């Protein structure tokens, strides 16, 4: 393995991080390995270094995903929320439509939890908010074109409850992970 190979593996492990931070980390590691290689030789410097995957994982845990990735996660959450509209509330819908809605809803819940755990509570919260807003916006659009109507107050309550619950589902798993994770105690 050469220094370039090592840095390439660290870069791969930090995929999704903010590009500016990632480039700075790689530049500093390159500088460090050059200093170490001058003293011990490249092979020994790389042999005594931590595995590139472990180094990358530490930075990934420290910085999480960059804004671009979080924006993509949020956009996907908003898109996934559209087919979760409760079809039973509309005229002409049946049990099959309701079952399909539930499947989509479960899929969205799993997705939000995955975002919260992988990308952190803030990303999860924003994704949850986006899915909530997306549900209200989609319903409003359907009502505006006359394709849907909420039959009674219970329908509104259920719709609002599920939508707001998505925010909590996006936030809580990531928050729990952050809370219970062993953190380095600094000064």
């Amino acid at each position, binding site marked *: 393995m050469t220094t370039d190979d090592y840095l390439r593996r660290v870069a791969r492990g930090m995929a999704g991080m903010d590009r500016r931070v990632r480039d700075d980390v790689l530049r500093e590691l390159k500088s460090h390995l050059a200093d170490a290689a001058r003293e011990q030789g490249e092979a020994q410097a790389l042999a005594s270094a931590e595995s590139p995957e472990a180094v990358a994982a530490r930075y990934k845990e*420290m910085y999480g995903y960059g804004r671009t990735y979080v924006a993509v996660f949020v956009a996907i959450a908003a898109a996934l929320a559209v087919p979760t509209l409760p079809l039973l509330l509309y005229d002409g819908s049946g049990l099959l439509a309701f079952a399909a809605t539930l499947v989509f809803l479960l899929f969205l819940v799993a997705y939000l939890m995955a975002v919260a755990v992988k990308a952190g509570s803030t990303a999860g919260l924003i994704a949850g908010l986006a899915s909530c807003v997306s549900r209200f916006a989609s319903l409003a659009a359907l009502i505006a074109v006359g394709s849907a109507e909420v039959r009674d107050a219970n329908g509104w309550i259920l719709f609002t409850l599920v939508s707001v619950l998505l925010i909590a589902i996006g936030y809580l798993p990531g928050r729990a992970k952050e809370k219970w994770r062993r953190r380095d105690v*600094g*000064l």
Partner: protein
Amino acid sequence: MPEVSHEWVAELKKGSIQLCLLALLAGEPKYGFQLIKELRDLSEGFFDVKEGTLYPALRRLEERGFVKSEWVEREVGVPRKYYTLTVHGRKALAEAKAVWGDMAGSMNRILRGSR
């Protein structure tokens, strides 16, 4: 086989590393590899810190405003990132040293009693 767990020793070291770094940076600006060597030499091998531990620790200190960093181009070789103690870091170092002194004194008194 030692009676004391490796994890306990690792935690002790981890808890002390930031104070060590602030102390080493109290003089002139230093770069990462230099800090690793000084840590190892001054501690006679006790603090044998890897780059995967040192640089994140330095970044945390920088986020707290205790140190600041600057890339320095060199005529020969790759650029180096130098770390300097800030005024805020100097105050933190003084406070942490006082706490460390209290703890070391207390521990020594307790441990003397266990002989």
